[in-house]
């Protein structure tokens, strides 16, 4: 992920690329999701429902403490739309 910050005084846009880090995150395939909502029930720490009844998934990392809950959410999605992805990001 690319972080852009403005450096005051210089008026310049500096783009820094933090070293990629091994991360586990949750993603939803929006073409599969029909807004069932079981993910928001099982993992409220990372999933909220929007005004139309579709999940908003945080791109924050899933720490070990949440890993079991996350796996349960993934396994419970009736549309199999939820995925845990891990890799250098």
């Amino acid at each position, binding site marked *: 992920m690319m972080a852009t910050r403005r450096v005051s005084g210089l008026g310049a846009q500096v783009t820094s690329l933090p070293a990629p880090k091994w991360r586990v995150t949750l*993603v939803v*395939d*929006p*073409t*599969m*999701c*029909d*807004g069932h909502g079981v993910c928001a029930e099982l993992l409220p720490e990372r999933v909220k429902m*929007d*005004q*139309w*009844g*579709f999940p*908003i998934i945080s791109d924050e990392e899933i720490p070990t403490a949440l890993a079991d809950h996350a796996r349960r959410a993934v396994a419970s999605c009736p549309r199999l739309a939820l*995925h845990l*992805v891990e*890799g250098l990001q």
Partner: protein
Amino acid sequence: MRTPLAEITPPTREAPTFPRLLSGLSSPDNSFGLHDHLEQWGALPLRRARATLLDELDSAGLRGHGGARFPVGTKWRAVSEGRARRAVVVANGAEGEPASLKDAFLLTKFPHLVLDGASLGAAVLNANRIVVYVPDRLTDVIGRAIHARRRADLDPVEIEVVGAPEAFLSGQESAVVRALNNGPALPTFVGIQSIRTRGVGGRPTLVQNVESLAQVAMISRFGGQWFRSVGTDDSPGTMLLTITGRWTEPQVVEAPHGVAFRDLLQLTAQDADRYWGILLGGYGGGWVSMTDILECRLTEEAARQLGSSLGAGVVAVLPRTCCPLAETARVVRYMERQGAGQCGPCVHGLADLAAHMEALAFDPAALRGHLPPIEELCGLIEGRGACRHPDGVTRFVRSALVVFHNEALQHVRRGPCGAVNGPALLPCPAHQGRPR
């Protein structure tokens, strides 16, 4: 190994300064057959390309002309890494954007530049399949060009032509791949996977815009340094533009990056009173005010600073006889209808956005003196579709709220302006249904 005929014909002709892709327009019949093409540009340097083209593309700094402006050399390297299976090269001429005419123009007038680029891609990436993906109405023209090349034994790999449905999303790259895999031309969720390594038939796939490929054909002959000899450091070379609203008919032109919009559009300071501003990039681009455009040059960096992008090269100059909010509302509704209906936030978000924009443009009394919560809504939509279609729409809408802020307030306070029922500039073809 046999030597293709084109390799025997004399090599390079003189390198053009400007124009480049459209140099041939000065020829009498205005359309380039294979003979004219080889006469003008010389042989297709396939063998040299295998050895040096990747480096030339990097040094050229060529970026894609389908909208995303991704570096071409970087993409070719990524595709060539999927070495386990032979790659597929797709020339993307779908041109779903209704305000853009440049790809169809290029394909009709100079098909061999595009086909050269596709063949070069196949040579460099060691591909054994080339598909030219163009709207149904152009498959015959391209078919004839391919036929002429086959008779001259020009290409190392057979070139196929496949028809694309005329819909906004047909040219989105995962939709292209899905269409070529015998599915509907609708985007898929690619996730962290990439069609560069797993695309058509599960093989590494290069999807490249047809103008990008035509530029590749020129770079293969004249080199990366030549390419950079016009343009700016950050936006080198030239690009094709579709200019609408400035003259009676839309025009396709080739422009050097870095040219002042003032010169490109032949504008003077007085024109600020005749026009509202311009739409830059396309329906996923953004509006720019006349004040800004009169000071702006044609570079991606300048466009980004103004909240837009050069995108697919649309430059639509909006006369004051049109209502900018009505133009925006019609395009948002069109884009909502063109959505594939697959992703909840895109379906509901674009529908709400279109309704808000229509209220603001045509029925502001219903808003009871308040601007609708459009920016908030944009924030809820962005980044949540399988493809970037909804994000393009929010960029377009956000720019309208910035550039036409005063007009929006006027609508809310005093009702729609007189131009609201005036002529429309931006085409929103009603006959286009949901893509198949």
